[in-house]
């Protein structure tokens, strides 16, 4: 028994016509149409296109909601192992349609999807959501694109583990995957440098990310009435690390009471952090979490109150996404507790 595939193409690849026929409404045909033949040939019977959706590019753009509903209904009924769209090369509206409909099929029907297009196609903006095989910028690249897409499609249908983007030939999707290169890192570095020095093209293995920003909140008006909380990424925990926060790559954060605690000391607190020399923090945890000073300010009335709970994580090797999740979670707790400001310390 072979895997069942539904294919999406536009009016042009269905041989209906060019721009003048781009208005045609979606239509469902049995079996393969046009480029579907190349997929079927690559799959050699292991998978087969059971139906093809044809839709005009302008129609999809102008009636996206209706077209999508119609196509989803057909795909749901057919319940294929994979939904494949395109390849769209550098056709902008076609690429957009392929990516959008594929994403809808994945999100709403939970069916595996794949599409292919040129890297600068606007449809490629969805590359973090669906797998997109990079292709040449014109249909002349079909001979290469079809087998490449067919190969990855078959891997998906078989449920095999996805390799790194450069191994399995999809556009980098923000998920880093390890794999073994042919040459060791130092050799790759020397080659990359020689290309850079000669002004020849080179591909970085890790493109630098861009960072988002959050606007600052208004200042605290009156410190003497404010409740201030202490938080740290320096891993300060009660002695013995009762919640087993990992020394690196932590999977959870700690919430601990300091109600009635005048100062931290060697007997009561230590650090779980594995990234720095722990000796100083273990000997005197106030060096990371300044409970002693905050208590003095509280007594003096300089601040209203030191919040009874402190929040702690280990920054060392902990993924940014986890750290973000921890902080977002305890920020809500702080809000509910009426905390007015936070001092966050890092090691």
């Amino acid at each position: 028994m072979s895997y069942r595939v539904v294919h999406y193409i536009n009016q042009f690849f269905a041989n209906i016509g060019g721009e003048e026929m781009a208005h045609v409404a979606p239509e469902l045909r049995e079996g393969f149409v046009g480029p579907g033949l190349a997929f079927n040939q690559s799959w050699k019977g292991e998978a087969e296109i059971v139906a093809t959706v044809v839709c005009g590019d302008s129609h999809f753009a102008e009636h996206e909601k209706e077209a999508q509903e119609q196509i989803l209904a057909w795909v749901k009924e057919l319940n294929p192992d994979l939904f494949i769209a395109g390849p769209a090369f550098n056709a902008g509206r076609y690429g957009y349609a392929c990516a959008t409909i594929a994403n809808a099929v994945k999100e709403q029907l939970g069916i595996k999807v794949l599409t292919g297009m040129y890297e600068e196609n606007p449809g490629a903006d969805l590359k973090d959501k669906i797998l997109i095989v990079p292709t040449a910028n014109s249909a002349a690249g079909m001979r290469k694109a079809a087998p490449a897409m067919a190969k990855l499609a078959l891997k998906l249908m078989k449920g095999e583990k996805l390799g790194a983007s450069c191994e399995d030939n999809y556009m980098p999707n923000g998920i880093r995957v390890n794999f073994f290169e042919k040459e060791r890192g130092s050799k790759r570095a020397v080659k990359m440098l020689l290309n850079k020095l000669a002004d020849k093209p080179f591909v970085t293995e890790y493109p630098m990310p861009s960072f988002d920003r959050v606007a600052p909140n208004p200042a605290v008006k009156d410190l003497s009435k404010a409740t201030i909380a202490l938080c740290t990424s320096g891993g300060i925990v009660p002695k013995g690390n009762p919640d087993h926060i990992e020394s690196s790559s932590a999977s959870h954060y700690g919430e601990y009471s300091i109600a009635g605690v005048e100062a931290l000391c060697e007997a009561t607190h230590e650090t779980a952090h594995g990234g720095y020399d722990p000796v100083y923090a273990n000997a005197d945890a106030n060096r990371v979490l300044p409970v002693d000073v905050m208590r003095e300010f509280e007594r003096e009335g300089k601040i209203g109150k030191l919040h009874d709970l402190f929040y702690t994580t280990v920054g060392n090797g902990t993924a940014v996404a986890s750290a973000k999740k921890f902080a977002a979670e305890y920020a809500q707790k702080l809000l509910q507790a009426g905390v007015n400001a936070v001092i966050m310390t890092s090691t």
Partner: protein
Amino acid sequence: MKLELGFIEIKDIQFSNECKVENGTLFVDAEAVKAFVYEDDDVKAYVKSACFDIAKPGESVRITPVKDVIEPRVKVEGPGGQFPGVIAKVDTVGSGRTHVLRGMAIVTAGKIVGFQEGIIDMSGPGAEYTPFSKLNNLVMVCEPVEGVHQHDYERAVRIAGLRAATFVGELGRNVTPDEVQSFETYGIKEGIEKFPTLPRVAYVHMLQSQGLLHDTYVYGVDAKRTLTTILYPTETMDGAIISGNCVSACDKNTTYHHQNNPVVADLFEQHGKTLNYVCNIITNENVYLADKQRSSDWSAKLCRLLDLDGVIVSQEGFGNPDTDLIMNTKKIEQMGVKTTIITDEYAGQDGKSQSLADADPLADAVVTGGNANEVIVLPPMEKVIGTLNYVDVIAGGHAGSLREDGSIEAELQVITGATNEMGFNRLSAR
């Protein structure tokens, strides 16, 4: 400066009542090694016991917790000796001739701080990730005397390992090497005259220097007390830099990595062909911001002063050293010197997080040693050298990492050398 390395292939290690290298086999009397190791006062004072074992490629053996890995070598001609300023007296090394027992290593094992020591598997999936699974390893498992301060103990075990390597290296002094290679870089003017058309390239070698248990030593000097400076590449090859690091196992540079620095090797391979390998610039990774600024300023300044066209920058560790890496790269690029950097990633177990703690668009040529957070399952081994007691708490492990059957589920972080940032391995990520 010109260095000849004579490689003696070691294909097997056997315990014996005598010590010698014969036909590619190291015969070693553990008691004799131990006696030499114990001649040091710190070792005497702080190391309660040292036991020896042998681990060979393909065996069902797990070594943990691993501290350092060292290649035994001996200076046979020219000034200096092994590990100048630490074992041998301070003399400039990097010239003359040194014999290398290739294919083997001394591995020091045993608990130091409990969470920063690694795992070496000699077979199975874990073996794919560590270069040390391919070596014949003479393992020295150390135990501390009670109540010892961990800084003192780290130093004692560091010295013990280097002494063991020195003892074993000495056995290669009068053995005829299987292969001899020579390495030479030139003075500034001499180099330009020899290779007038080739781009001038150096290696910016970042040394971990964050604290007493996160340190690297250059000619015996603690790297955190150094200013960025210049070495002949052959000095590094000849034991000038040693590891005193107890940091996450995957991307710490062991002494073996320094002795066999792959960037040095691969730059030498192109030296005189496609580039002119000028020198190594060593710079530290300190915990004070002012130090980070000063050291990276000096890296950039030296690159300009040496009229370099390009450099390779390698990192050690992760987290705040990412800032040293980015500062170095940014400042060097701003001097008009092109960079390629080698690092590794902490992208989360799902690979979805941002990989480095710092970033800059000028760092546009990056080689990665892979995502250290990726989870791996290491099947049980028939024999454990050392102890599994620390698997749950070492960096990259978690409560329950060690399963009942002896298998381990943990991040790649736990494996010694897995995501090395000198580019020692083929592992990468996209």
